């Protein structure tokens, strides 16, 4: 696996180099005439009112939270999905599938709870 990671590491370097080069070339060639109006925050021509870091609705956070739990769940499911095909056919194989099904059903119960609690609504 290490040569695969070496390739991806080199790919990362090249992938960072290309956009950096683009920005540097553009910075060298482009004009630089800053003035306060040009650099002010863009709000369709209106003067900016108040601070720019406004506070957010809580639902954004709730959705990110539910996502976090489900994301971790999928991490567990990937090894299970691979183990499915490695297991023996027959009753034992179905048993392996059932283990995962139980896992998913428990998580679905969480989703149902969040749904009933109204956490999936955009308040």
């Amino acid at each position: 696996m290490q040569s695969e990671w070496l390739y991806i590491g080199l790919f990362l370097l090249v992938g960072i180099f290309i956009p950096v080069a683009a920005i540097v070339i553009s910075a060298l060639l482009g004009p630089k005439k800053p003035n306060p109006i040009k650099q002010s925050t863009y709000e369709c021509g209106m003067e900016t009112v108040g601070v720019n870091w406004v506070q957010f609705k809580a639902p954004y956070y709730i959705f990110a939270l539910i996502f976090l739990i489900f994301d971790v769940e999928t991490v567990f499911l990937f090894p299970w999905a691979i183990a499915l095909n490695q297991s023996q056919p027959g009753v034992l194989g179905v048993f392996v599938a059932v283990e995962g099904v139980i896992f998913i059903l428990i998580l679905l119960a969480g989703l149902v709870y969040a749904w009933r609690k109204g956490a999936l609504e955009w308040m």
Partner: protein
Amino acid sequence: MIPLSWYLILAAALFSVGLFGVLARKNAIAILLGIELMLNAVNINLVAFWRYGSLASIAGQVFAIIVFAVAAAEVAVGLGLVISIYRRRNTVVADELDLMKW
């Protein structure tokens, strides 16, 4: 080849830095950031012990995955508590949350 000691020393240092963050930070969210560092130090150790120990038992990696789940649960509940407290008390400074002091 990297000796095991390098990983262990790095993990110990990372754990100590995280511990400092947990003890010294005022902001409750920053304290949770420190806990994340400590959990990562633990994970480095677990995986290093798996790699340098017996490869046949995959226990080190399984433990590391369980740590991922625990970290996710901890962050979800911890940040949930912080936000709930913030709504009621309008502060996230851990020292000011002294309702239960007595």
